C-alpha cells in the first residue's frame, strides 16, 4: 500500500484502522498494567517483563497443538505466573533493599537468560501460532472484512481492566496492595506480611504479561526479538500513562496503539516511531508524570549519601600514567589478536567512562547510553560512505551526530529522575535502534554498513591501536579532569540534593543536560573509533544489550569510584571475549554472572570491598 493522505482514506478504512488500534491496545495494556502493578508495590522496574510476554507467546504456541488454542492461552499465562513467582521468591526478594540500579540490572540479566532459554528450547526460527478456533472467520464491518478474533481482543482489554479494578478496589488483597504501594513499611508494622503480598503481586504481573503474549499468537509470530520490542513499548505506555496508574496504562496503550495503527494504515509504517516519539514528548512536556500519573514524593535533603569523589593521589596518577605507557609499549611485543582485543577494551573503556560521567557524579541512570555510541558509529560510516568525507574528518565530525541525539533526548530525560529516567533513556535508545534497523535505504537496515575502513596510513593494526590509545587516553583524562572542575562539583551537588543546589543558584537541569550532551559526545567518539576498527557497523552497536554492557562495566568497577569503569570495561570485554568464543549460549552465561554478582554483592562489588577493608 502506498502513502495515502489522511483525508483520502474512506470512512470505512478509517474505522477499520481504528478497530485495529483497539485490538492491539489490549495486549499492550496487559503488559503495561503488569509492569505498573509490580513497580507500585515492589518499586522494581521489571525489565524482564517483555521476556515474560515472549515466554507466554512461545508457551502458547507450543501448547496449542496438544490442548487447543483456547486452553493453551490461560495455561501459558499461568505457567508464566508460576515462573514469575519463582523468580520473585528466589531472586528479587533478596534485592528489595539493594540500590535501584542493581535491581534493574538483575532483571536485565533475566532478559538475557530467558532469551537464551527460549533460543535453546524453541530454536531461532519465528514460530507461527494457530488461529483461534471458532473465531477464525471475518465479519463485515462497513463493507470491509474484519477478523472476528480482533473483535474479541477489543473486548478483552476492557474486560481485564474491569477485573483489575474489582481486584484492587473490592477485595482485601487489593486494599493491601494499594496500602503497600503507598507505604509498605507502615503496612508491615500493621501486621501485613509483605513477602506473600510481593510474591502474589509479581505473579499477577507476570500472569498479565504472559496472557498479553499468549493472546497475540493468532495475530503475529513468536520471535526472539519481541521481548525488547515489547518492553520498550510498555515503557513508553507507562511513561505516557503515568507509572502506577492502571487506567493511565489503558489510556496510553490505546493512544500508542492507535497511532501505530493509523501510521501503518496510511502507509507510513516507517514513521510510526517518530510519531510515537513526538506524542510521548508532548505528553511529557505537558504532564511530566504521565497522563494519569502523580509526581513522586520528592525526597528532601540528601538522598543516599555518597562519599565524595576524592582527588586521585600522586601515586594513583603515576600508576595511571604508567599504565598508559605500558599500553603504548604493547605493540613491540605483540601485533596480533592482543592488539585487537586491547583496541576493543580502550574503546569500551571510553564508553564506560562517559556513561559513568552522567551516572556516578551526575546521578542520571541512563539505560540507553548505547544510542550515542551507535550514533557516533553510524555517523562515521555515513559520513565516509554517503558523504564522501575523508576518514580523519569523519572521525572528528561523527560524534556530533551523537551530540545532536543527546541534545534532543537529554532535554526530555533531565526532566525526569530515577526509574522514569531509566525507562525514558531506554525508550529513546530503542527508537534510535529501530530507525537504524528499518531505514534500509540509508543505514543499510539490519545488515548495517560495511566498508568503513580507516585511511591507509592507519590501516595496520598497530597504527590504529596507537590512534585509539591516544584518543581514548586523552578523552578519558579530559572527562576525569572535568569532574574536578566547577561544573563537575555543581553536577555532584545537583545529584546529592537538587533542592539545596537549586537554592544556591545552580540550575540543576541545565547542568544535567550539559553533562548528558558531554557524555554523549564521548560515547559517540568511542562509537566512531569502534566503527573504523571493525570496518562495519550494524544495528547491534546501539541495541539495548549494548547499553546494559555499559552499565555492567560501570557497576563492576564501582559507580562511585573514579577509575573503576576502566577496569570494569577491561574485565567485561575480556570476559565476553573468552565466553563468547567457547560457549554457544554466551548471553545466558553473562546474565548468570551478573545475577551472581548482584546476589553476592547486593551493595556492588566496590561497596563490598570498601566495607571489607574499612573494618
Amino acid at each position: 500500500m502506498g502513502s495515502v493522505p489522511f483525508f483520502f482514506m474512506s470512512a470505512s478504512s478509517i474505522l477499520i484502522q481504528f478497530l485495529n488500534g483497539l485490538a492491539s491496545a489490549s495486549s499492550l495494556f496487559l503488559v503495561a498494567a503488569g509492569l505498573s502493578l509490580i513497580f507500585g508495590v515492589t518499586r522494581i522496574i521489571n525489565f524482564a517483563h517483555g521476556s515474560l510476554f515472549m515466554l507466554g507467546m512461545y508457551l502458547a504456541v507450543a501448547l496449542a497443538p496438544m490442548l487447543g488454542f483456547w486452553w493453551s492461552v490461560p495455561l501459558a499465562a499461568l505457567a508464566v505466573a508460576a515462573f514469575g513467582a519463582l523468580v520473585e521468591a528466589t531472586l528479587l526478594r533478596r534485592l528489595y533493599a539493594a540500590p535501584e540500579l542493581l535491581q534493574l540490572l538483575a532483571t536485565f540479566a533475566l532478559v538475557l537468560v530467558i532469551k537464551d532459554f527460549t533460543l535453546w528450547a524453541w530454536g531461532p526460527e519465528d514460530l507461527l501460532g494457530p488461529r483461534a478456533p471458532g473465531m477464525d472467520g471475518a465479519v463485515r464491518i462497513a463493507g470491509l472484512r474484519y477478523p472476528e478474533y480482533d473483535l474479541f481482543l477489543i473486548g478483552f482489554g476492557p474486560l481485564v481492566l474491569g477485573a483489575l479494578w474489582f481486584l484492587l478496589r473490592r477485595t482485601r488483597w487489593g486494599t493491601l496492595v494499594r496500602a503497600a504501594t503507598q507505604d509498605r513499611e507502615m503496612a508491615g508494622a500493621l501486621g501485613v506480611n509483605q513477602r506473600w503480598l510481593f510474591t502474589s503481586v509479581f505473579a499477577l504481573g507476570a500472569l498479565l504479561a504472559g496472557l498479553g503474549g499468549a493472546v497475540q499468537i493468532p495475530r503475529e509470530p513468536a520471535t526472539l526479538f519481541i521481548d525488547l520490542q515489547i518492553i520498550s513499548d510498555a515503557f513508553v505506555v507507562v511513561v505516557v500513562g503515568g507509572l502506577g496508574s492502571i487506567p493511565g496504562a489503558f489510556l496510553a496503550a490505546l493512544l500508542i496503539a492507535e497511532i501505530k495503527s493509523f501510521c501503518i494504515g496510511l502507509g507510513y509504517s516507517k514513521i510510526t516511531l517518530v510519531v510515537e516519539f513526538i506524542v510521548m514528548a508532548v505528553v511529557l512536556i505537558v504532564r511530566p508524570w504521565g497522563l494519569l500519573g502523580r509526581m513522586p514524593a520528592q525526597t528532601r535533603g540528601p538522598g543516599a549519601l555518597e562519599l565524595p569523589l576524592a582527588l586521585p593521589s600522586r601515586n594513583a596518577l603515576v600508576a595511571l600514567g604508567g599504565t598508559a605507557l605500558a599500553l603504548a609499549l604493547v605493540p613491540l611485543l605483540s601485533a596480533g589478536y592482543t592488539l585487537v582485543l586491547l583496541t576493543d577494551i580502550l574503546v569500551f573503556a571510553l564508553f564506560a567512562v562517559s556513561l559513568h560521567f552522567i551516572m556516578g557524579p551526575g546521578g542520571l541512570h541512563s539505560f540507553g547510553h548505547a544510542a550515542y555510541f551507535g550514533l557516533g558509529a553510524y555517523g562515521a560510516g555515513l559520513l565516509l560512505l554517503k558523504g564522501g568525507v575523508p576518514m580523519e574528518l569523519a572521525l572528528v565530525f561523527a560524534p556530533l551526530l551523537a551530540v545532536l541525539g543527546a541534545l534532543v533526548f537529554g532535554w526530555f530525560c533531565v526532566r525526569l529522575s530515577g526509574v522514569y529516567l531509566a525507562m525514558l533513556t531506554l525508550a529513546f535508545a530503542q527508537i534510535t535502534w529501530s530507525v537504524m534497523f528499518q531505514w534500509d535505504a540509508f543505514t543499510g537496515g539490519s545488515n548495517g554498513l560495511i566498508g568503513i575502513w580507516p585511511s591507509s596510513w592507519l590501516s595496520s593494526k598497530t597504527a590504529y591501536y596507537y590512534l585509539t590509545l591516544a584518543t581514548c587516553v586523552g578523552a578519558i583524562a579530559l572527562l576525569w579532569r572535568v569532574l574536578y572542575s566547577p561544573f563537575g562539583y555543581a553536577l555532584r551537588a545537583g545529584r546529592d540534593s537538587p533542592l539545596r543546589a537549586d537554592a544556591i543558584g545552580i540550575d540543576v537541569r541545565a547542568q544535567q543536560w550539559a553533562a548528558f550532551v558531554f557524555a554523549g559526545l564521548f560515547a559517540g567518539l568511542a562509537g566512531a573509533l569502534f566503527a573504523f576498527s571493525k570496518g562495519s557497523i550494524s544495528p547491534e552497536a546501539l541495541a539495548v544489550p549494548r547499553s546494559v554492557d555499559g552499565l555492567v562495566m560501570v557497576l563492576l568497577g564501582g559507580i562511585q569510584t573514579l577509575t573503576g569503569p576502566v577496569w570494569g570495561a577491561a574485565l567485561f570485554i575480556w570476559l565476553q571475549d573468552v565466553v563468547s568464543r567457547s560457549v554457544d549460549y554466551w548471553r545466558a552465561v553473562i546474565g548468570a554472572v551478573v545475577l551472581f554478582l548482584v546476589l553476592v554483592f547486593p551493595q556492588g562489588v566496590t561497596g563490598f570491598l570498601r566495607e571489607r577493608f574499612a573494618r
Partner: protein
Amino acid sequence: MLEVSGLNAAYGRAHILFDLAFEARAGEVAVLLGRNGAGKSTTLKSIIGIVRPLAGEVHFFGRPIQHLQPYQIARLGVGYVPEDRRIFTDLTVMENLEIGRQPPREGAPRWTPAKLFELFPNLGRMQDRLGARMSGGEQQMLTIARTLMGNPRAILLDEPSEGLAPVIVEQMVRTIRELKTQGLTVLLCEQNLHFARQVADRAYVIEKGQLRGSGTLDEVREEYQQV
C-alpha cells in the same frame, strides 16, 4: 510485659541509642520523656522492628522479639502508632481500618469498626472519606483506630499530642485512659509534660539516646526540665 534492655541503635554511622533499658508493665501507661532528637522515635521503631537494633533485647511477654520482622511483631500483639501518622491517604477510612485488621486475640480487647466509632465518633461520620482529605486531628484518631483493629495487647504511641489543637489533646487524654481501662498496655513517647502527667503511671527521661532518670512522673520531672 514489655521489657527493653541494653538497646543500641544507629542509622548508618550515626549512633542514636546507647544501652537503653526500661519496661512497661501489664495494664499501665509508661512514658518516655525527651526533647526533639533524644531518640524516642528510634526507640519505638526498634521495638516494632522497623529499625534493626545493633544490640540489646526486647522481650514481649517474656519472649525475645528483637530479631523478628515488623509484621511478625505486630502479629504478636504489639501495635505501633507512628509520629507522622502515616495514614494511607489513597485509602478511605474504612479501608485504612481494614489494613490494620487482625484476628481476635486472647487476653486483648477486641475491636470492631463499630466499637472504634464509639471511641472516635468523628471517624464514624466519614467512613468513606479518603485519608488525604482529613484534618490532622482526624488523621491522628484514624491512625490509632487503625492500629487498634489489630487487637493489640500493647500499643506504642509516638507523640500523639503533637501539633493538635488543645481540645483534641484533651480528647487524646480521655482516649488513652479508656485504652488503659480496657486493659491495654501503653508505651507513650512525649515531650509535652502537661499531657504526659495526665496519663503516666511510670516515666523515663531520655537524653541523647541515654536514660537519665526513671520513676513516677513527679519524680523525674526535675530531671526532664534540666535536659
